């Protein structure tokens, strides 16, 4: 679905031998997982060879290799896709549901929230739902109000779900393998604008554990906590502020749930200042929980209140000028950091 190369340039200029894009990384992770375990299957719209391997080509080549029984192209029936994955997972398989764009989870929330998330608990641990829900979204490609939302905060509020969102190709590969091997349901959020990003290929059977944040850049003055596409913005802003003498530590959560509280709290204890950044609507977003936990844990140590940056409080507008006004800008991020630095307690 359109040009996904937008951010590629900024990510990797030099052509190294084993560079792969995030789409290739995800494809490889699926391929390896399917080769390793025949319980791994994929259900989604257009995912088969007959349909060209998916709208974003993430499943390209897989049905040729593993057959139509393991790569199942589905009707446009998200509840049926999700339910089929819940059922297959209960029977011991490791299904992956592909929801073409994140806004369409709204037609399948019942299966995710009332069923996938709760069946282990409601059955007293007799059953479990080892499934992955892959979906993509992202603001900045002009897809407008019904194709751009970031809804991770909803899922984070639901006990029983894990949430993963990679910011680079290598992590995408390693996190996908871990997500598929997880014995609980995982929401795996891809960002359309990151699909073309390249990393050095981490090789076969690479894993990134769930629940472990990465320190994407070390710093000592302030901690900038984020995940997904905005990690790129965060790194750029950190570079800019380094020029102003501010040392920014950037944390890439990688998994939103479980939340790596240890890593984040340790960083903020060190810096004494924190800013949380996400593309999702700021209000009632994940940033609110992260900021609250930091205030609760480090109230006496914080040199300034934790700042939050996120999307504006409206539907995502279509016109490019409005869409850009909607997204948290690098200036906004930099200003929040400056405010934090200048705070007098």
């Amino acid at each position, binding site marked *: 679905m359109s040009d996904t190369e937008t951010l590629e340039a900024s990510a990797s200029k030099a052509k190294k031998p084993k560079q792969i894009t995030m789409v290739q990384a995800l494809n490889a992770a699926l391929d390896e997982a399917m080769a390793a375990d025949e319980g791994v299957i994929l259900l989604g719209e257009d995912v088969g060879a007959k349909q060209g391997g998916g709208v974003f080509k993430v499943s390209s080549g897989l049905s040729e290799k593993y057959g139509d029984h393991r790569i199942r192209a589905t009707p446009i029936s998200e509840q049926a896709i999700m339910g089929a994955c819940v*059922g297959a997972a209960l029977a011991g398989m490791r299904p992956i549901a592909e929801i073409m764009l994140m806004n369409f989870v709204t037609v399948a929330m019942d299966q995710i929230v009332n069923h996938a998330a709760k069946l282990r608990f409601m059955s007293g641990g007799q059953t479990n739902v080892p499934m992955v829900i892959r979906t993509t979204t992202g603001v900045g490609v002009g897809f407008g109000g019904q194709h751009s939302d970031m809804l991770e905060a909803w899922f984070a509020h639901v006990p029983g779900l894990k949430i993963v969102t990679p910011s680079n190709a290598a992590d995408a590969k390693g996190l996908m393998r871990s997500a598929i091997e997880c014995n609980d349901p995982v929401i795996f959020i891809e960002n359309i604008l990151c699909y073309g990003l390249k990393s050095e290929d981490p090789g076969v059977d690479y894993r990134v554990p769930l629940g472990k944040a990465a320190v994407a850049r070390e710093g000592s003055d302030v901690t900038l906590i984020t995940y997904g596409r905005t990690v790129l913005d965060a790194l750029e802003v950190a570079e800019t502020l380094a020029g102003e003498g501010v040392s920014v530590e950037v944390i890439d959560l990688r998994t939103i749930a479980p939340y790596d509280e240890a890593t984040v709290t340790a960083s903020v204890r060190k810096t004494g200042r924190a800013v949380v950044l996400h593309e999702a609507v700021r209000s009632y977003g994940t940033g609110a929980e992260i900021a609250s936990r930091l205030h609760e844990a480090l109230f006496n140590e914080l040199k300034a209140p934790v700042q939050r940056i996120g999307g504006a409080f409206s539907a995502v507008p279509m016109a490019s000028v409005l869409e850009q006004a909607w997204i948290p800008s690098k200036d906004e991020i930099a200003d929040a950091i400056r405010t934090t630095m200048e705070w007098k307690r």
Partner: protein
Amino acid sequence: MTIDREKLLDIYTRTMKVAGFDEKMRSLLMSGKLATIYYTMRGQELVTSAMMAALNQDDYLVTTYRGQHDQIAKGVPLDLLIAEIAGRATGTCKGKGGSMHITHPATGVMVTTGVVGSGLPIANGLALSSQNKKDGKVTVTCFGDGATNIGAFHEALNMAQLYKLPVIFLCQNNHYGEHTAFADHTKVDSIVTRAAAYGMRGVKVDGNDAVAMYAAAKDAVDRARAGEGPTLIEAMCYRMMGHFFGADFSYMPPEHIEEMKAQDPLPKLNALMLEHQFPQAELDAIVAKLAAELDAAVAFAFDSPFPDADEIRKDVFEEEIAA
């Protein structure tokens, strides 16, 4: 249609087990010994006994809040079931699920849902797993007439037929969805006409006729097992009481009440047994044996401890949540 005597006895036993259980539950609730939400299946005992008699123990079942008859007929032990309903640590689900969420994989009961229609897509997934693994299992999912108007029903039937899944959609058409009569929730005369909308085989059957109901069930199971795909069975029956225990059902017109009383499956089945030369004494002995089993199950449940409060941190994820 005929039925062999052994199978008929099997169906009779399952039915009377359900009937005994239901009566006991209602008396426990009535007396205040038990306080929980309970959806009585009085009037629908036979439908499911005949269906489950056509399955193997390891075949899968997905049912609803009103599925205690389905679960019992499928084989869930009464003691664990009642303990669960009574919120005890020894219940099938450690008291976490309750009557609306019985799970018991040992007898194939994989999901009991409280959300109307949501079991159908999940049943497809179980059946899809059997299709891929070639394990020969059949999945049955039970739901009501009201459930056939919700989106999940539509999506699930279309997908099941598209993939030719070994799944049976058993609609227990009891003429009401909560307080709404069948004719007030759809303009179609019969649910089974919807099968055609998916190219699916559909069978309408009198769910209070043991011979016909078993034949329909058996046929659907055989076909599913043979790889011939899904069937939608519409089993006509009656919900002889309110939507849940204690609920008012004054909205049911008197003609409907007359009609349903005439169709009560329990006396009808007893008559059929006599017709098939089972002596009443033999039947009574079965009922007595079931009653003893039931009393023991109730005693087990009420003697069982309540779960520990820290159970709320367990089974959320594979790993326990920190206190």
